[in-house]
C-alpha cells in the first residue's frame, strides 16, 4: 500500500487546517514557496509516513488535496 498526497498548489490559501488535522504531523506550510495567490502552500514532508486517512483532503475548504492509495501488485 503506497499512499500519495497531491496538492493543487495554486488553489491553496495556506490556512493550515490540513496541517492541524493530520494524525502523522507530516504536513507543513512551505514558507520558502509563494503560490500564485500569494500564500505559502501546504506540502508533505514524508510521503512514506502517510496512512492515507484522507483527513487533510476532507477538511480542506478549497479542495486542494487529492489522496490516493496505490496497491502494490502481487
Amino acid at each position, binding site marked *: 500500500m503506497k499512499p500519495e498526497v497531491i496538492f493543487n498548489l495554486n488553489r491553496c490559501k495556506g490556512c493550515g*487546517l490540513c496541517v492541524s488535522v493530520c494524525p502523522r504531523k507530516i504536513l507543513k506550510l512551505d514558507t520558502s514557496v509563494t503560490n500564485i495567490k500569494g500564500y505559502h502552500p501546504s506540502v508533505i514532508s514524508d510521503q512514506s509516513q502517510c496512512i*492515507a486517512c484522507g483527513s487533510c483532503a476532507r477538511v480542506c475548504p478549497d*479542495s486542494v488535496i487529492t489522496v490516493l492509495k496505490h496497491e502494490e501488485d502481487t
Partner: protein
Amino acid sequence: MTQIIYQRSKGLKDVETHYCPGCHHGIIHKLIAEVLVEMDLLDTAVGVSPVGCSVLAGNYLDCDFVEAAHGRAPAVATGIKRVLPNHLVFTYQGDGDLASIGAGEIVHATARGEHFTTIFINNAIYGMTGGQMAPTTLLGQKTTTSQSGRDPLLHGRPVRMAEMLSTLDGMAYCERVTAANMPELNKAKRAIKKAFTLQMQGIGHTFVEVLSACPTNWGMSPADASAWVKSTMSQVYPLGVKKDITAEEKP
C-alpha cells in the same frame, strides 16, 4: 490498482472560492456537494443563497441556485418547493441573514412545515460586512459593534435558533453540528444527508445548524478558530439532534 481516498467533489464547479483562508463556508459547501452527488440529486436540486459571505454559493455548488433578498430565502424556497415538490430544495443562510433580519421568515416557514431544508451557518458574527455583532454573538465576545464584549444588559443574549424552531409543530428534523474537527465533520455530513432524505419523504421542515468559524473577523488563525468552535461556541450552542419526529418513541 489505485484507490481514490479523496478527490474534489463533482458537485462543485471547478472554480476558486472568494472565501478567506480557513473559512468553514468552503468546508460546508463541500459536504453539501458530496451529499448531492451521493443522492444523485445534483441535476434536480435547487439551492437558495442568502445575503452574506455565501451570497455566491451558487457560483460554487454545481446545482441550480436562486439568490434571495436578505433573510428572505425561506419565502423563496417555499415558492420553489411548492411548484417543484419532487425537487430537493434547500436554503443556505448565515446567522445575520436567518436569525436577525430574516428571523420572522424562518419562524413562519417552519411553523407552516414547509418541505424544504435549511442549512443554517452560525458563525456568531456578521462576516461580510466586517465583523459586527449578530444575535448569535456569545456573551463577552468582541466584535466591531461590541468592542468591550457582548454585554447582556446592553445587547441581549445569544439566540438559539435550533432549539427555538424545534418547539414549532412544523419542524420534522433539526440537528446542530459543526465541521470543526474530523469526527464532527463526519456527523455534519450525515445530518445533511438525513435532512435531505427526510425532505424527499415530505414530512415537514428539516433544519441543520452548522457552528462555523469566521477566522478573519474573530481575529484567530483558522486552526484556533476551529478549536474555539468546539471548546467555547458549542458550550453555548450544544451539538446534537434537537428534534426528529421519525425517531422511535422511547419506551
